[in-house]
């Protein structure tokens, strides 16, 4: 496509001057979408009073959106996206450069340099000038951000280049970046630029320029994730289940109200088409209060999505299969979802049959949402709490542990390499081979799989902790095992250091595959490879040929170099069709719905929830204590003390924290009255002077406010 002059703009920015007046600044920009203009960040300072752009060949100015002028900015890269109106209308995304440069290449652009400014009747006239030069592929590296290193065939003075910042850089007709600076020591003959791959590696940038594909219509939408092999009846049945849910008074009353009537259906292959879709999908994973995933065949990408969901949402997640749920099926469940409730959406049943999928799914949504509302620690997938545990402590002697250390689990997890891989017999030689190679590279680190974690804690808990905290996490995609992809999803979602993904380039068939696990011939395998770019390797066991061993050596050298680069935060090239190693995590930082986190609760709310969580909301009506073994007298006394002390703490917190607001805020007064009633109910009717006095105070306060 090359440079499109209809997209080229003069950027005109008004900024306050020291004298109290305004002055203007100019730059060059380029429309990436109908309403987003890319330019250098320094062209548009934070204190800009007005931002206007003029399209090439037009006298019309487009103004920035007054309320939200900056759609995205990265001051380190020195790039910004300005949101302008009116829009130019629908336009295709520019063609980005695809590959990293391996030789010097020619580049070209058109821009609005000051040197080309003309005066007509005391009015400035800004005209474009085309320019070209050489892009030095090995230049621009070193410390910090990797830049474009550009020289110019027809230099001007450095001052004369003012206005060129933000000019699009084209190489072979593809957008390779933007000009950001004129290097003064080169006397106007050398520029630095922002690289396209650096822009595209920014998840927020990609998300903002993306065409809207997936948007949840409300915070009561049900997300349905469809598998590849079975584009099944799941969506139809979920729609019917929602209809039933929305007519179920119990569900409406106790599960937070009606759900959006239309489920949002997403086919797993669509989510993997490109990074833009991937980001929109994981945004939906964060937002959807209910997600129903078709786990038929336990396809790797579906399991990956479930792993991410398990990290980002304490919501209702229902795994559904079109297979019949019999003992054979349940015995083949991947480790990670063995504890989860699996439902079946397949088969035909009479309308009154309680096994009818519409009834089952509707009830699962109702019960899940109800429990989510009433229990602050509700979970239907493992992981969520485990990845929120503090980092495990280091050994006291601060020495790296040996591989056989009996206290290995006490080691800091930065000393650990966690390997996510299959465990079946066919993988054994591969594990020996890979772990041996890892030990050669990292002799002072301990290398563990899930089954090597010696902690007596729950395996899942320890594993997910390691997945989050281990500095190096190796994931072997070979055999496309569902548990490996679930765990890969967990790592992608919760670590700023992406995994070291490996894949045997021979992609051998999984002979140990269980009958219900489908992996061969799935399109999603190719899509996953494109999107997450795993490192391919040559498997070279002991009996391998010399050539194979050489190839394996080269492969692993590249893998380790790439991993070193990301652990040292060095810039690495990311193909435009892929996401960077930590893009999913970084995007989630912005998209995670933190409002649902209990750590945000007010202390009095937290204390209330904690007490009610232990003994129930209406304890007196029950007659059965919910706390196991509390018929032990001493234990029952300590339990009662603990519960009422929590209520007392809630009362004192509220009264003193909102002492002044209580004078003016009616809502606060109602809250205090309600709290007082609950505290009164719980306080034991003893002659303890403190408790008697407190009861009197609360009664007086309630009377005063009533």
């Amino acid at each position, binding site marked *: 496509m090359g440079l499109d002059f209809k997209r080229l703009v003069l950027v005109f920015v008004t900024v306050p001057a020291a004298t109290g007046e305004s002055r203007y600044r100019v730059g060059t920009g380029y429309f990436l979408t109908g309403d987003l203009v890319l330019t250098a960040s320094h062209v548009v300072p934070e204190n800009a009073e007005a931002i206007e752009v003029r399209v090439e060949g037009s006298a019309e100015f487009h103004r920035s959106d007054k309320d939200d002028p900056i759609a995205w900015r990265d001051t380190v890269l020195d790039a910004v996206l300005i949101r302008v109106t009116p829009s130019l209308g629908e336009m295709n995304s520019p063609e980005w450069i695809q590959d990293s440069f391996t030789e010097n290449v020619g580049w070209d652009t058109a821009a609005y340099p000051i040197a080309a400014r003309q005066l007509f009747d005391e009015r400035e006239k800004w005209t474009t000038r085309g320019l070209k030069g050489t892009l030095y592929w090995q230049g621009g590296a070193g410390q910090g951000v990797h830049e474009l290193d550009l020289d110019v065939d027809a230099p001007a003075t450095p001052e004369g280049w003012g206005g060129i910042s933000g000019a699009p850089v084209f190489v072979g007709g593809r957008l390779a970046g933007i000009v950001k600076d004129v290097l003064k020591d080169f006397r106007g003959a050398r520029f630095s630029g922002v690289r396209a791959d650096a822009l595209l590696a920014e998840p927020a940038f990609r998300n903002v320029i993306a065409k809207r594909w997936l948007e949840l219509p409300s915070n009561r939408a049900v997300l349905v994730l469809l598998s590849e092999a079975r584009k099944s009846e799941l969506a139809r049945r979920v729609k019917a289940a929602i209809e039933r849910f929305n007519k179920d*008074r*119990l569900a409406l*009353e106790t599960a937070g*109200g009606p759900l959006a009537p239309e489920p949002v259906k997403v086919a797993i292959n669509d989510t993997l088409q490109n990074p833009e879709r991937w980001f929109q999908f994981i945004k939906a994973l964060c937002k959807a209060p209910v997600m129903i995933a078709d786990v038929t065949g336990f396809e790797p990408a579906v399991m990956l999505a479930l792993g991410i969901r398990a990290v980002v949402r304490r919501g209702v997640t229902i795994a559904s299969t079109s297979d019949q749920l019999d003992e054979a099926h349940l015995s083949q469940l991947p480790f990670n979802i063995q504890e989860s409730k699996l439902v079946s959406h397949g088969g035909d049943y009479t309308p009154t049959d309680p096994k009818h999928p519409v009834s089952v799914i509707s009830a699962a949504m109702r019960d899940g949402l109800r429990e989510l509302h009433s229990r602050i620690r509700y979970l239907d997938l493992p992981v969520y709490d485990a990845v929120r545990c503090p980092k495990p402590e280091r050994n006291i002697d601060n020495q790296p542990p040996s591989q056989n250390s009996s206290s290995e689990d006490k080691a800091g997890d930065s000393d650990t390499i966690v390997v996510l891989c299959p465990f079946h017999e066919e993988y054994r030689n591969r594990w020996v081979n890979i772990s041996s190679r890892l030990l050669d590279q990292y002799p002072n680190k301990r290398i563990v799989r899930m089954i090597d974690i010696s902690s007596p804690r729950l395996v899942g808990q320890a594993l997910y902790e390691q997945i989050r905290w281990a500095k190096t996490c190796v994931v072997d995609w070979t055999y496309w095992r569902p548990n490996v992809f679930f765990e890969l999803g967990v790592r992608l979602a919760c670590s700023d250091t992406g995994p070291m993904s490996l894949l045997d380039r021979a992609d051998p068939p999984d002979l140990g595959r269980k009958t219900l696990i489908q992996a061969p011939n799935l399109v999603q395998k190719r899509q996953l490879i494109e999107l997450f770019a795993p490192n391919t390797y040559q498997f070279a066991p002991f009996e391998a040929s010399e050539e194979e061993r050489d190839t394996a050596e080269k492969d692993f050298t590249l893998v380790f170099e790439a991993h070193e680069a990301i652990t040292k935060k060095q810039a690495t090239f990311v193909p435009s069709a892929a996401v960077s190693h930590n893009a999913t995590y970084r995007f989630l930082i912005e998209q995670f719905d933190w409002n649902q986190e209990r750590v945000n609760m007010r202390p009095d709310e937290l204390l209330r929830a904690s007490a009610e969580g232990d003994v129930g909301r209406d304890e007196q009506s029950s007659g059965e204590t919910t706390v196991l073994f509390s018929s032990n007298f001493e234990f029952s006394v300590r339990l009662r003390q603990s519960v009422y002390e929590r209520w007392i703490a809630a009362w004192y917190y509220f009264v003193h924290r909102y002492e002044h607001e209580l004078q003016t805020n009616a809502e606060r007064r109602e809250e205090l009255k309600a709290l007082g*009633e609950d505290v009164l109910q719980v306080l034991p*009717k003893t002659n303890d002077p403190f408790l008697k006095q407190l009861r009197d105070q609360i009664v007086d306060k309630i009377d005063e406010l009533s």
Partner: protein
Amino acid sequence: MPTIFDAIVDLKTKAKNRRDLERYDRAAAFVQEAIVLANKELATPEFRAKMASELADCYGLLGGIERRSALVASASEEHVADHLRRSVKAYDEAWRYESGDFGVSSSYGMVNRLVTRVLADPNALIEGYVTDLGEGIEPVAVPVELEEARKKIESSKRAESDYWAAADLALVQLLLGKGNPAGLYSKYIEKSPPDYAYNSVLDVLRPLSDRDLAIKSDLQDAVKLLSERLARLQSAISG
């Protein structure tokens, strides 16, 4: 957003607090509000069992409030009779929900409708006697129904796990003259019930032990036993 179930629990809590403060009129008014709310939704199929359970609980609570109101110190005979009748009516209503096909498993109304009749009529425990508290209240042969109640609670096995049911069973057996207080209340005590449960049980036993009944000494022993247990519990709680 609070649900209708939350609203009912909140009203019951307010009623219990007013009851404990001996503000019986206000307590009764809060329960009546809760009853109105629960009644509104009783016909909703999905809510039927839960609302029936709440109604049984609310009427039981109302019965207790009226009984306490009847027995305030220096109350006139008329006041006592009037409020005991109201109490019996409320417990009968609770029993209606417990005994209907609503799936409510409590025995609270079933037992207390009989106990309150004993409080209202000193002859109620005489074999073959039918207690009649006047128009609008069902005449009941208390000993016969106590025996029925015993069988029901025992067969439900609820007394194995539920301290309210254990207390109801002990009281029924006590009134039927079947066993000594220490033995009858042992199941209740071994569940280590909270102090409010002791207070509630004693609130029923104390006025009964003041009545001139054949089992007066057993009732007094029961009051003594449970009072001591409560004192021990309160002492432990106060630390």
